[in-house]
């Protein structure tokens, strides 16, 4: 079958009423968490994770992925209308987006952000679709020893380039790896840190931990903010951009798509980095750089396109190799594995319906989001008026039901509550939860692959420095250095990311 036939069979999966419904739920919920400051895509995904357990793998993953890219759309709305980024990847959009809104041009800003997101997102899926199948063939040759090297490099990269203290990020990665060792040792069945308790034999429930560390702690932090948000109300008839807006945006959208797609391979914070790089590049290329900061539409179009264009690329390591490179895809991985589907080089042959269904659903989802975000923007803005006093109990109830329903285990609810408390305290001290979550998912795999590599090599550590490992190290390091050099050239630095993290 050609790629076209595969894609058509994917649409056959994605266009069933069930897939469409869950794709819509995912996109809708993604937009909501994107709009609401404080709730990001990660919290959004973990909160609905239990919902996927009753679904078949393709439908579950379609919904979760919908939340992931849906949030990239929603984030811009709050940035433009309130000057509060809905999530980290929309920080730069605040600069010119809010300025435009103040000048009464919120409509065109929202319009361009949505259209840019649509173009970036769609092209990115196209890339995912074209790159993954040939890559999967190569990936098959990647043995456990190379996977170990890749995972270690990903963790180092995350510690190095994430916003906030490097030491604190590294600490969270180590904590995640340590918590992951609780339970029966997968290879020999030896219980570790279970203290003789049968309930701990399978480790701490990932869903409970993820909802606690991410969902609950985020809600607690939001409770501290009591001010009501005043949003600029756009008039729908003003949505249509002027000719000059389109002319200014078109090149920005094109460049944003390319930047997002390339920077999407950076582990950890690709979507955030891509927006900063895009903004800097637009400013550099603009004929009127003085307009930036005073409502330049290119400053909205570029970054908003870029953050959506990263979504497809970020899926490639997950679907082609089975290694998540960012926390969002780590959640997708855990959802798939719980359903008995292992992403990796064989996903395309063994579960073509999952891969092609997902790809097709991402095309559908981007259309859904474009429709959701333009006419319904008023509805989403109104969400900001819901007092946290109402929102918080609702979300807490959903989380508790969700966590309990996974395995009808009351202990999981306690794990959620306690990890929520711990997450809150850690975040108050500036420790990020995202690296912890990623390490939690990668940890199991890292250990398993490390030991399998040694089994296969007959106990020789030299396997980690064999030809294929060294080749992969060389390629990845070169790639990262080039991207870093590009980022520096165009004025992105860690200090800017740190600043963004604080806003």
């Amino acid at each position, binding site marked *: 079958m050609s790629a076209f036939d595969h894609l058509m069979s994917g649409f056959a999966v994605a266009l069933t009423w069930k897939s469409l419904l869950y794709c819509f739920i995912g996109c809708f919920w993604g937009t909501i968490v994107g709009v609401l400051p404080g709730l990001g895509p990660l919290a959004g995904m973990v909160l609905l994770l239990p919902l996927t357990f009753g679904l078949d793998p393709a439908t579950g993953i379609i919904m979760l992925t919908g939340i992931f890219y849906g949030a990239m759309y929603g984030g811009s709305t709050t940035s433009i209308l309130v000057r509060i980024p809905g999530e980290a990847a929309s920080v730069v959009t605040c600069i010119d987006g809010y300025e435009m809104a103040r000048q009464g041009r919120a409509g065109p800003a929202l319009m361009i952000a949505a259209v840019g997101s649509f173009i970036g997102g769609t092209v990115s899926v196209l890339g995912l679709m074209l790159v993954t199948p040939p890559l999967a063939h190569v990936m098959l040759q990647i043995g456990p020893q190379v996977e170990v090297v890749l995972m270690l490099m990903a963790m180092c990269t995350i510690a190095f380039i994430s916003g906030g203290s490097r030491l604190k990020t590294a600490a969270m990665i180590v904590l995640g790896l340590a918590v992951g060792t609780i339970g029966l040792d997968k290879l020999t069945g030896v219980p570790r840190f279970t203290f003789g308790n049968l309930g701990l034999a399978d480790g701490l429930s990932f869903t409970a931990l993820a909802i606690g560390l991410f969902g609950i702690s985020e809600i607690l932090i939001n409770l501290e903010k009591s001010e009501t948000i005043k949003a600029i109300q756009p008039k729908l008839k003003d949505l249509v951009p002027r000719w000059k807006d389109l002319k200014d945006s078109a090149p920005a959208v094109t460049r944003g798509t390319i930047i997002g797609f390339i920077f999407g391979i950076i582990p950890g914070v690709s979507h955030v980095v891509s927006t900063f790089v895009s903004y800097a590049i637009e400013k550099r290329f603009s004929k009127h750089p003085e307009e930036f900061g005073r409502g330049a539409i290119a400053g909205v179009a570029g970054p908003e396109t870029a953050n959506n264009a990263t979504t497809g690329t970020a899926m490639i390591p997950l679907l082609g190799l089975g290694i998540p490179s960012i926390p969002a895809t780590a959640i997708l991985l855990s959802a798939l594995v719980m359903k008995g589907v*292992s992403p990796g080089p064989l996903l395309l042959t063994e579960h073509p319906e999952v891969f092609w269904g997902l790809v097709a659903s991402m095309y559908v989802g981007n259309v859904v989001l474009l429709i959701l975000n333009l006419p319904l923007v008023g509805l989403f803005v109104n969400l900001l008026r819901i007092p946290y006093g109402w929102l918080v109990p609702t979300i807490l109830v959903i989380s508790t039901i969700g966590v309990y329903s996974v395995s009808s285990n009351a202990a999981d609810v306690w794990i959620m509550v306690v990890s929520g408390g711990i997450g809150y305290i850690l975040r108050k001290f500036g420790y990020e939860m995202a690296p912890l979550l990623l390490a939690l998912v990668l940890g199991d795999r890292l250990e398993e692959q490390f030991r399998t590599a040694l089994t296969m090599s007959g106990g020789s550590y030299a396997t980690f420095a064999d030809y294929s490992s060294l080749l992969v190290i060389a390629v990845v390091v070169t790639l990262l250095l080039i991207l870093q050099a590009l980022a520096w050239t165009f004025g992105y630095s860690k200090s800017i990311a740190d600043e963004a993290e604080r806003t």
Partner: protein
Amino acid sequence: MRSSIRRVALAAALTAMASSGICQDEAAKSAKPKSSSSAFPDGKPVEMVTLFGAASASTATARVLADGMAKVLGVPVPIVDKPGAGGATGYVYLSTQKPDGHSTVWSSNSISTTFHSGQLPFDYKNFVHVARVTVENPALAVKADAPWKTLKELMEYAKANPDKVRVGNSGQGSQTHIASVALFSSAGAKIIPVHRTGGQATADLLAGRIEVAVQFPQAVVPHVKSGDLRVLALLSSIPDPVFPDVKSAKAQGYNIDMPLWRGIAVPKGTSKAVVAKLQDAIKKAVESPEFKDAGNKIGFTPAYQPTDAFTKMIAEDDKRTSEVIKEIKAAEAAAK
């Protein structure tokens, strides 16, 4: 504003529905309790304890069986998921329940593996094994271009080259692990078992990182069809609809018969009449066309067997499993 709140509430309802409740609702729908006087099932639901998590293939199979049994028994058969410790959590839970037929467990070889590896405080004799329901046959696969055309050639190579043949399985203590160790050691061959999860053994085999993989048919069938892999033997003598032409190891002269079996067990002390009723419901459910269809989809072979034959089979299986686990432990101790 109103509508958005309603949507949040909708999400909450969906969350609750999709996870725990749904299977019970379906079972309840398909079977309205009949009012019968004192006879089992007494109008009360018959619980089925599952061991490997709501999303596992094992539990998916249990749901199909539960639906079928509910239709025959006329009461709901809800799934009660008690995952953990390789199945031990659920077995321990069932052993604390009343032996009245309203508590059953979706059991498997795990009852022997968990006992002999020290996770379960009691063995299979603690339960009455009502009936076998399904089997899954471990298949031994090599690359299509491998030098071994028959099981015998492979075994002789492995014997002549100790600690050279890497045999992938689907995890420490899994049925594919136990069966592969049993096969090679019965011929006196020393191999390197490679424990892999989530179908990685197939990827390793395709890429040539291991020489042999012992996997359930579903994991290898697409690659056998594409001509990349070859199945040399089934480590079970039960015919497999996926590989009708592949000979069993037994037929090729190796006395190994170790399928992964699943069935229904109840606590010891459950009365004969109740066991007979459950057995009848299981038989009817397993022989239904729906069950066969589900087998093709999920990847199991319906293989009904009544109490006596089933218990005898478990006893033999348990003995072999205990021997293999002892051997694995000894090999591990020697490696240290």
